């Protein structure tokens, strides 16, 4: 076997005074870190197997456990970090591409954290959301260019199909397969309860979830998995997935081992065969081709469903978005480089794409400059972490946001970033029945509902502070934002002034 160069990244620390040998940690850790030593009558752990997911920590009844980062270190080197060295050890051992999950964890600037929000003082009154009406409802879709009236002066309804959301939040695409049945059920039920939408991802729609159709976005991705007429008709909107923030430019690969039972049926992929989503859509090589797919989908659904085109935020995002806005799509979804995933090559996750804040600002500006901003709504995702991020996104020009990682965290995800192992201890990114069971959707959906309701309260609170009583008046209202610690170029792209200006 040779020498194992890898030293465990985390240490499982057990307070032996508190441990009562209940063996709950042993039963709950799918990575088999904990074992009971019958002879010594103590619990032992193998640190090397720990992924730091906190399942055992959260369930230990006496709080005897904690996980700490190992302080074991290589000789310090600002260039060759511990991570850089270990990754070389891993690859020279395996010969393979490094895989990771969830979003880009690296220390790139988070522009949301360098933007501050305005509030009213003296000259313009703030509004108390508890006493006065405050509107956070949004409508997504293309807006008519003009008001039309018939000969009697009555308004003609010239709206094309759109989406109505109780608040500017949707759950982003996560496929059944990448996440569990119970996670999907939680998302679907929560979306229904609060009046927003969730997204099937490219895994098709399980027959049990057709009942949540009016709160569902059905996705059509490059593999076309699970796509058929009933599926397209089941949802409130159709999303064409061109790209994903976590792995722009590449496709997906759900290993055959995960194509079991209902997943195989839902994806319409034979059991045990790999589900490979090609990197491009093989029928889309231009905006004209995209337009054909947009209209094929509209035709197939009688022009009753708005079509979303989702792209990853990449260098030319503004020009691409301009093309999409002319393709007949009703909504553009842009996914920033911090967006999550169930599995992506580490190098791509960590190095490809651009920050969503910059992408959003430049897309919104470009569409406005070209006079086509009303053709489409803009939805952004890729690490919206709280309601402050949402306010900033809306003020930068977004109509709504997608939340994925935040929703999973609400369900119990601890961002251990081991989704690709399929052994999620929290029952989210796994298909093993005994693990899936750990996410009780009756509990899960309530946590999601709580989260988005809480965020909606905060959004109203902050809008009130700015003296704004409708989210529509905040949209693209960049005067409500100021930058801190940003250079001229960054401020120019974001279209905001520096604090103090």
């Amino acid at each position, binding site marked *: 076997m040779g020498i194992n160069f890898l030293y465990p990244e985390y240490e499982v620390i057990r307070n032996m005074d508190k441990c009562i040998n*209940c063996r709950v940690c042993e*039963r709950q850790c799918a990575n088999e870190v904990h074992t009971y030593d019958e002879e010594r009558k103590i619990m032992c752990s193998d640190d090397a197997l720990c992924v730091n997911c906190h399942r055992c920590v959260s369930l230990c*009844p*006496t709080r*005897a456990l904690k996980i700490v980062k190992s302080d074991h270190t290589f000789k310090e080197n600002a260039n060759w970090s511990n991570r850089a060295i270990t990754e070389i050890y891993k690859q020279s051992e395996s010969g393979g591409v490094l895989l990771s999950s969830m979003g880009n964890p690296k220390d790139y600037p988070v522009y949301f954290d360098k933007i501050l929000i305005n509030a009213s003082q003296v000259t313009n009154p703030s509004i108390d959301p508890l006493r006065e009406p405050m509107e956070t409802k949004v409508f997504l879709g293309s807006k008519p260019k003009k008001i039309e009236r018939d000969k009697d002066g009555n308004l003609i309804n010239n709206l094309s199909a759109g989406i109505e959301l109780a608040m500017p939040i949707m759950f982003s695409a996560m496929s059944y397969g990448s996440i569990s049945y119970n996670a999907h059920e939680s998302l679907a039920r929560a979306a229904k309860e609060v009046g927003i939408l969730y997204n099937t991802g490219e895994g098709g729609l399980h027959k049990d979830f057709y009942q949540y159709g009016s709160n569902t976005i059905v996705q059509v991705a490059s593999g076309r998995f699970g796509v058929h007429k009933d599926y397209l008709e089941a949802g409130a909107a159709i999303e064409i997935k061109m790209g994903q923030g976590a792995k722009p430019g590449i496709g997906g690969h759900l290993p055959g081992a995960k194509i079991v039972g209902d997943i195989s049926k839902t994806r319409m992929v034979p059991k045990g065969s790999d589900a490979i989503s090609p990197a491009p859509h093989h029928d889309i090589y231009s905006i004209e081709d995209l337009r054909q797919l947009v209209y094929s989908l509209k035709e197939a659904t009688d022009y009753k469903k708005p079509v979303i085109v989702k792209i990853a935020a990449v260098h030319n995002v503004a020009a691409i978005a301009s093309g999409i806005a002319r393709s007949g799509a009703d909504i553009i979804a842009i996914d920033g480089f911090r967006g999550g995933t169930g599995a992506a090559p580490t190098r791509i996750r960590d190095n490809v794409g651009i920050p969503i804040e910059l992408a959003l600002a430049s897309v919104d500006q470009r569409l406005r400059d070209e006079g086509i901003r009303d053709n489409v709504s803009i939805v952004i995702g890729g690490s919206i972490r709280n309601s402050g991020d949402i306010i900033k996104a809306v003020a930068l020009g977004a109509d709504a946001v997608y939340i994925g990682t935040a929703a999973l965290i609400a369900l119990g995800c601890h961002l251990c970033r081991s989704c690709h192992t399929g052994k999620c201890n929290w029952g989210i990114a796994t298909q093993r029945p005994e693990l899936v*069971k750990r996410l*009780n959707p*009756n*509990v899960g959906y309530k946590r999601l509902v709580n989260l988005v309701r809480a965020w909606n309260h905060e959004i109203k609170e902050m809008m009130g502070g700015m003296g704004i009583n409708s989210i529509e008046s905040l949209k693209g209202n960049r005067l409500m934002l100021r930058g801190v610690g940003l250079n001229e170029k960054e401020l120019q792209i974001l279209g905001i002034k520096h604090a103090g200006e």
Partner: protein
Amino acid sequence: MKRVYVNEEWCLGCHLCEYYCAFANSNEKDMAKALKNVIIHPRIQLEEGDNINFAVSCRHCDDPLCVKGCITGALSINDGVITADTNKCIGCYTCILCCPYGAISPGEHGVIQKCELCTTNIKGSPHCVVGCPNSAIVFEER
């Protein structure tokens, strides 16, 4: 009456309910102090199978066979809760044989013990329910 019910669909077989039960009935304030180096005798017990687990405790039957069977009158119904008077129990274990759910077990000092919905310990309400991580056991009216 509110009772403890199990939804086996969500029971993980983690055994936490057993430990929370033993803790509640120890009347100690600190769990480690109560249960360290102790072999627990919980009043709720997990039944484990291949793919199914569920925790069983006293059903607090409307027409309890254990109360009928007790030869000393140690078991009685108090506001619907079947309680045991350990001063009266002589350890004949007739109730253990009578209970169709196997919810009564031998306790300390030769007498029996059973779930009294935590009405007779310092917790005051079912502690197993509080400790269940997946809402598999619930305390509710049905």
